[in-house]
Each structure stands twice: as C-alpha cells, then as structure tokens.
C-alpha cells in the first residue's frame, strides 16, 4: 500500500472540516477524490502534504508515518502536488518554473553551487534536459520562455503538473487539474494521466468533472468532511449518498 | 503617597496619548497595509498647526485646537487619496511614500520654525489641588480629553456602521469588499481619523512639554512598540498595549535612568516577541 490514511480529522474552532477519513491507495492507480464544493477535499490534500496539521489521525506513506510533517519533508519522501490557486512561480518563465522545481533531485550542495563545480554543472544540465522533456510531455515546449503569469489558464494548469513532476513523485496529488479547461485540453490532460500511470506514478485527483470517473481505478467520495463512499467508479456512480450530495434529495430514489 | 498618585496620573496621561497615536497607526496598518512612517511626523504637525493658529495667527487657543483638528482631518483625506491609494498593494512604493512624507514634514517644520524648541501655551494654567493629590490643570485636562476621545473612539468602532466597516476591512479586506463595503471610503475615513487623533495627541503633548520638529520620532517608536506588543492585526489590543507601554514609560524613569527604562521596555517586548511573534492579542494573518 502506497498511501494509508487512518481516521484523519481536522477541526477549525467549531467547524469540523474533515471527520475521521480513512483511505488506502495502492501504487499504480489513478484515484479520484470527489465531492461537492466545500466538502473538504482540498483540506484533505493540505493535511496529507503537511500544509495543515491534523487534529487527529495518521497518514502513512510507503509504511512510513508522515503525519503532520513539514511540506518540504513530505515532498522529499516522494509526494508531489499541484495547487488550485496561485499554483506557479509567477515571475519565472515556464522553463524556469520546471527547472526550479528540480530542487530535490538532484540536490547540489551549497559549496558545489557557490563555486560552480563540475558536479553542480552536471546537475543543472540534467535538470535542464529533464525539464525540456517534461515540457514536451505536457505540450508546453513552444512557450518555454514565456513568463508564467502571461500563460493562458489551460497552459498554467499544465505547467502546474509539469512542476509537480520535477519532484519525481511516487504519488502525485492533483487539485482540480481539469478546472477551467476546454474539451481539447481535458482530453489532453487525461491522456497525460494515463501516461503517468504507465510510468508507475500513482495519481490522486480532486475533481468535480465527472469525466475522470472513467479513468479512475478507484474513487473516494467526500461530503461535509466525511467519506461517504469508497470503491470502483461504477459503485460510486450508482451510490445514492453520492447522488444526493451532488444532485439533491429527489434524485436519490 | 504623592509620588504614587503622580505616577498613576502620569501613567494614565502617557498611555492615553500613546493609545491615541497607536490606534491611528494600527488602523492604517490593518486597513490599508501601510506602515506609516510619517505618523509621528503627523503628530508633530498637529502640534505645529495648532501653534501656527494660536501663536502665529493669534487665534484663541481652543479655537486653534479645533481648527487644527479639522485641518489635519482634511490632510488625512488628502493623504489617502493622493499618497496612499495609488500605491495600495505595493508595499515598496508605500514605504518610499511614507518615508518621503516624513522627510518633507519634518524638514518643512524645521525650516519654518527652526530646530529650537518652542512653547505652546497651556490651555489652562494653574494647578489642581485635592488633598494630597496635586496636578497641573494642563495635565489633568490632557487626561480628560484623551480619555473622552478614546471612549468616543471605542463607541465609534463598535457602535457605528462606519466603525464596524473599518474593523471589517482591517480583518479581511477581500471579504469586506465582497460584502459591499466601499474600501476607498473606509480607508479615507480611517486616515482622516488617524490624523485627527494624532493631531490631538500632538497638540496636548506640545502644550504639556514643548514643540520641536523631531518630537514625532520618539512617538513613532512608541507607536511601533505598542502595535507590536498588542499584536499583529489587533485593534482592540492597542488599548492594552498602550496602557502597558504608557505606564512603563511614565513610571520606570522615576526609579531608574530614562535610557535604561527605554531599553528595558524594548527588551521586554523583544523577549515576548521571541516566544510569541504575533504579540499579545495578535492572530496569524498568513
């Protein structure tokens, strides 16, 4: 089991944002995390990646506990993520965004960097080459020298994924990667997800867009901070609780 | 006994003045995100404007006081519209602006009146004696005016619409805007208010002590201390912070040298900050 979440909870003052969520993810899967707005999905992401500390519960990654560790440590363990809002280094170019993200692998020492040693130069060349490859993968090669903040929305989303891939994640957390994309861009993104799965990267996606259900091996549905369903895409699609959450009471029957 | 009552009186007076200045400073910081370096200079200008009306133009001191409050209020509106509003959101530009302001105001005052201190005549001469308790009318008046104003401020913030709007913007600008609050109008009001309060404090202190172009510098330091101590983003906390700093500054020099008491206050605050950087009443803003 790649990711094991037990009893994850978070409350802010009186508000119970996430309540006793359990989840297991095996490697090589694409897993969907669905639920209506405000259900707590991004909060769960933030809890998993260390941006918020849980009130209770435990998270295990590759059998190592990562509960409440700092974000940079979790990134080093092999979890990458994208963000819904402000997802990029806005003052860097597209290429710089990805090259910058090669912070962990390979890691150059302070002295190596300062004195421009051959090892540092080798690492940087490697980062460059890998970045170009990733940009090719996500289709952003032509805009590599554009400032990130000038990119149209769809491109920015792809750049977010490109950036997260630089961490060489075993688990990739994507927060609404299809948000605001047109049909072509959605198809393109979904194809990339399949390619990533082939490369052995496990993906956990938060999404509203029900199209991803077709691509998911496994889906977890959340409402009001609680898990309401956990199973294959088919099971979840038919689950009355899920239907009620999205469409309202009358459709459930 | 007399020392104790004098101490308490001095502590209260100093606190009141500090709170008046710090409140304005905190409002500007929270509402507009501006670190107004020139706030001490505005305090000083308030005193100078009163001086200008009363001594240079010979107008009745009380009338001068009121006039200068009005003038400073208008100045606040001017400041907000032409100096602060264009640079909202750009911290670097705000910094240049407020530093440029302090240069202009202090140098202007210096050139106009020269660096030697002037005296602003007291509003009420004479001494009030009540049993063992003796204080100049001036000091007593300062306390009364200060206290009344602070009560008015509290009422304004808590009970009026515009006051609540200021508080809303201070706590969450985006949320407030979404609620339909006119940010510019609120900011203008807050700036005018801050300038008027600083003017009152400046005039009263000038009458108590004396007037010189650089008297704003130490007040700015105190305002910063109060705001840091009370806490990031807290408006109400300024009352407590001001009280603490005011009393410390008024009482400590009686027992130890004033340089040492300055340092002790700073060290106390630094220690608190090292353990709790957001201050006594502050909250995490990021």
């Amino acid at each position, binding site marked *: 089991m790649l990711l094991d979440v037990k009893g994850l909870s978070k409350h802010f003052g009186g508000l119970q944002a996430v309540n006793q969520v359990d989840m297991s993810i095996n490697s090589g899967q694409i897993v969907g995390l669905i639920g209506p707005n405000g259900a707590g999905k991004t909060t769960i992401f933030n809890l998993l990646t260390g941006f918020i500390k849980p009130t209770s519960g435990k998270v295990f990654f590759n059998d190592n506990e990562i509960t409440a560790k700092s974000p940079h440590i979790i990134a080093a363990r092999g979890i990458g993520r994208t963000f819904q809002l*402000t997802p990029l*280094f806005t003052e860097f170019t597209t290429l710089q965004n990805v*090259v910058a993200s090669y*912070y962990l692998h390979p890691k150059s020492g302070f002295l190596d960097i300062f004195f421009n040693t051959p090892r540092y130069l080798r690492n940087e060349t490697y980062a460059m080459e890998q970045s170009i490859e990733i940009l090719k993968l996500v289709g952003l090669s032509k805009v590599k020298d*554009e400032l990130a903040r000038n990119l149209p929305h769809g491109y920015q989303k792809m750049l977010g994924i490109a950036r997260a891939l630089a961490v060489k994640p075993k688990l990739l957390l994507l927060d609404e990667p299809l948000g605001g994309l047109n049909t072509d861009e959605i198809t393109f993104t979904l194809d990339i997800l399949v390619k990533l799965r082939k490369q052995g990267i496990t993906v956990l996606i938060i999404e509203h867009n029900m199209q991803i259900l077709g691509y998911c091996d496994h889906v977890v549905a959340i409402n009001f901070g609680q898990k309401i369903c956990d199973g294959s895409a088919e099971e979840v699609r038919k689950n009355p609780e899920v239907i009620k959450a999205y469409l309202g009471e009358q459709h459930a029957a | 006994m007399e020392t104790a009552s004098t101490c308490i009186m001095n502590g209260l007076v100093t606190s009141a003045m500090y709170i008046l200045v710090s409140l304005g400073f905190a409002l500007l910081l929270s509402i507009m995100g501006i670190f107004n370096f020139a706030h001490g200079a505005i305090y000083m200008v308030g005193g100078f404007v009163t001086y200008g009306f009363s001594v240079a133009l010979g107008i009745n001191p009380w009338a001068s006081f009121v006039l200068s409050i009005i003038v400073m209020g208008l100045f606040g509106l001017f400041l907000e519209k032409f100096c602060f509003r264009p640079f909202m959101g750009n911290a670097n530009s705000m910094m240049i*602006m407020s530093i440029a302001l302090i240069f202009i105001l202090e140098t*202007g005052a210096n050139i106009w009146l020269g660096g030697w201190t002037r005296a602003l005549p007291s509003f009420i001469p004479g001494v009030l004696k009540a049993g063992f308790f003796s204080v100049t009318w001036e000091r007593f008046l300062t306390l009364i005016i200060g206290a009344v104003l602070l009560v008015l401020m509290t009422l304004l913030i808590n009970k009026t619409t515009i006051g609540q709007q200021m508080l809303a913007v201070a706590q969450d600008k985006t949320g407030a805007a979404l609620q339909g609050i006119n940010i510019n109008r609120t900011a203008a009001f807050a700036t005018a208010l801050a300038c008027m309060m600083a003017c009152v404090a400046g005039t009263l202190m000038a009458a108590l002590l004396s007037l010189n172009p650089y008297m704003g*510098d130490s007040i700015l330091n105190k305002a910063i201390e109060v705001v840091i101590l009370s806490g990031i983003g807290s408006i109400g906390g300024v009352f407590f912070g001001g009280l603490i700093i005011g009393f410390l500054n008024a009482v400590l020099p009686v027992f130890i040298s004033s340089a040492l008491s300055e340092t002790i206050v700073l060290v106390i605050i630094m220690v608190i900050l090292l353990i709790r950087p957001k201050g006594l009443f502050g909250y995490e803003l990021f």
Partner: protein
Amino acid sequence: MLKNPFVTGRNKTVYIYVGLVIVLLLFPLVVSSTFYIHILILSFIYVIAAGSLRLISTSGQISMGHAGFMGIGAYVSIYLSKFLGVSPWISMAIAALITLIIALIVGIPFARLRGIYFTMITLFFGLGALSIEQLFSDYTGGYSGIAGIPALFSTDSKIPYYYFFLILVTVCLIIMFRLEHSRIGQTWKAVAQSYSVASSIGINELQQRVLVFAIGCAFAGLAGAGLAHYSLVLSQSNFNLLASMYLIVYVLVGGIASFAGPIIGTAILVMIPEMSRSLKDYVPLLFAAIMLIVLFTMPKGLAGLPAQVKGWFHRKNKGNTPKEVINNAS
C-alpha cells in the same frame, strides 16, 4: 546548446562592472581631492550594506533594521579593538561573524512573520539593539558617541582606505552576485513568490529565509565595522531608525529588482548630503523630491531606467498577452 536559466554564464553586464572597477582603481591616480576619495569610500561601505539589504529582499523579506546590524558589527569591533586591544583587521572579521550568529538566532522567530510584519519586527530589533548598545555607554559612548576608534591603517592618508574598501566591496559584491545568480538565489526568489509552491518542491522555506537574512546581516555587520575603523568617530545617528530608512531608500530608489539597483541608488544618494554641506537642512527635502520622482515615474527604480526607455520603443519588452502566447506557439 540551451542555456540553463539559473547558471551564471558570460553576462554582458559583467563587462560593465569590470570596467567600473578598473576606472575606480585608477581614480585616485587622476583625482587627488580627498573630498571625492572620501565620498567614494563611504559609497563603497554603504554599497555593501545596501547590496546585502537587497540580497535579503530577494527572498521577499524587507528588513528595516539593517542599520541596526551595522551597529552591532561596529560596536562589537570597537569593543574588541579599542578595549581588548585586538587588531582592527581581526576584530572586523570577528564582528561580522558575531553579527551573523546574532542574525541567525533572532532570524528564526522573526521568520515566522511574513510581509510587513517581518519588516516591523526588524525595525523594532534595530531600535532595541541600538538602545542596548547605548546602555553600555562606557564602551559605546552612549548617546553622544564614541571617538578614538583604532584605525585600520596608521597613516592619515585616505588612499589605503580607498583601495581596501574598493577591494572589499568588489569581493562582497562578487559573493552576492554569485549567490543570487545560482540555484541558491533562485531558491530564495522561489520562496519570495510562493511559500506554498516552494515547500511543495522540497524547499525548507523557513530555513532559507533565515539563511539569507543571516548572510545579509553579516555583510551589514562587516560594513558597520568598516565604517567604524574608517571614520574613527561614531554616534548613534549612524545606526538608528533613520539610518535604516536611508538604506531602504538607497535600495528602493536604485531599484530593488536589479542587482545594480543598490549600487546606483547608494552612489547617488550618499553623495548628496556630503556635497551640499551648506544646505544641510534641506537635504531630506532633496531626498524626498528624488524619491517621489522615482516613485511616480520609474517603477523599476533608477536601475530600470535603460530598460524603461527601451520599452517605450519596443512593445515586446512588456511581455505577451495570453492570446499572443498562443499565437506564437502555434
């Protein structure tokens, strides 16, 4: 061969700097006026301070207590050299080191604060440091200042000081340049743009911010100590809030976004008070005038002026709109 955006390569601006250094090296041979030599020495010292202030700002933190750290360096060096008899050369180095350590210690709780609140805390620390230093008036001269600071050179001539500080500022600037234009500096700039994104790629943003703060303050301590052993006379006005404000003004007017910014800003603004002794009272007004002109007309500061002027002629410099981006890409 693609150029890695973060590896320093042959840069045209490097040639400008080299040319400048050569001119400065030859300057005393051509100009003998001690007045100009003195102004240049002060510029060198303050460029170290302003440049390091700007270095800290690459991580998104603006320090308003930088002069306070200069003061720490100065007073530590004075204590070691004047009262303990250590050679000023050694005391300067130790002072810079001690300033580094102090900055590391206070930098950790300070870094928990962001944006304007970090600035407030550093401002406050500058006030506090100065106040504590004045307490030890036996060693610091208190409010009125201290004289008789041991000099770096035993001669009265300013020339050795000129060359020493020219070499010192060049070395410091090379270090700062290297830091900024490498992955180290790029990490700091990443942190400045987004703590969240930086953390998500494995950057310990708290650690990095403390690191750059400490390094910057160490340079300030060095500059302060240098000032002490050059001026031989110091007072609290060298390291008070106003002094910190002046440093910020040097950086902002010169242009905080560019490496050359603090150099240009310091060079111009340090000159002004020295040149207009008779108009001493009006100097702050002149500063204010320059600041307002730059504020309202030059968004990138003085250093950005060439690019700004070029931008009036070429649209491309303003960056592409998203539509243009898509058009270019297809």
